[in-house]
């Protein structure tokens, strides 16, 4: 599950927690995965759709910079949502 992680084990726990929170927020929004990925790509995101999907399903870790962009993408997209 965390075979992709090469950093400090304490940071891993923190990253796991952060990822759980992002995944939870993703489930709460009505935004489809591809729409979110496209928006994230538009912000300069580098992860491909597969890795992105895996991250949102808590199956893969991404670099902190990418995680920040996913959070930004979610915030900006749900701000424009009229649901």
């Amino acid at each position, binding site marked *: 599950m965390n075979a992709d992680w090469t950093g400090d084990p304490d940071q891993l726990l923190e990253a796991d927690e952060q990822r759980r929170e992002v995944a939870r927020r993703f489930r709460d929004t009505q935004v489809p995965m591809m729409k979110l990925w*496209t928006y994230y790509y538009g912000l300069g995101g580098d992860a491909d759709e597969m890795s992105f999907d895996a991250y949102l399903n808590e199956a893969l870790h991404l670099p902190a910079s990418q995680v920040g962009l996913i959070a930004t993408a979610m915030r900006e997209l749900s701000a424009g949502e009229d649901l």
Partner: protein
Amino acid sequence: MTGSDGQPFRDPDGLPLEAAELSLQQLVLESPDIKAFLTELAILASTRLSGPGNTIHSGVTVLRHKRPQAVAASDAAARALDELQNGFGQGPCLTALRQGTTLLVPDLSAEDRWRPYIRTAAANGVSSILAVPLDLAGEAEAVLNLYSGRSNGFSGEDVATVESFAAQAASSLRLILRISQLREARNDLTAAMQSRTVIDMAVGAIMAQNRCDRDTAFSILTRASSTRNIKLRDVAATVITSISGEERITAYFDE
């Protein structure tokens, strides 16, 4: 990429999949093309089935966020009847929608199910109801509702006619949904290309000015965006404008 059991990664509750379906239902409700198509379907069904002394009112209800919404109708009476049923949250059309099967109520005065709705509908002059769901292959849920002022207002032949109508309409609707979805995806990608170009340029500019790496430049931009509560793309555009005076940066690519 697949999970250990060979299935694509999905939330155990299936929520991401559901989110995608919701957006399709949103499409059914918001696209003027689809609305016009459903209105035509309702009018066609009503003219085809209406006979002397037996006017058929017809409407279409779509399920959104698990809540039904009347989207198209042959006339005001049909829309009012659909909305009435949706207001009660129960009735033959909603049951047909949920079960995915045709439902015929030949005589409202002999019906014991959905009492509050049936009573109100009868008071509004309805005597028989036919509900036929549109099979949209899980992409959205819709039902064609027909109301008659006569008991036994729908013959066996009528039911077969409406079912074949509904099947044909559903296959066209599936195609319309698919096309609308692709068009939306293309528009999103175009917007992403424009946005990415502006942001990449701004990041490069910050790297040059601050003599920093890409990640640092990115976080400077992100911080500016979140503290001022301005979209990242707009902050990036401001950065470029402040350096070069250029107002409009566009990415060119063949569509």
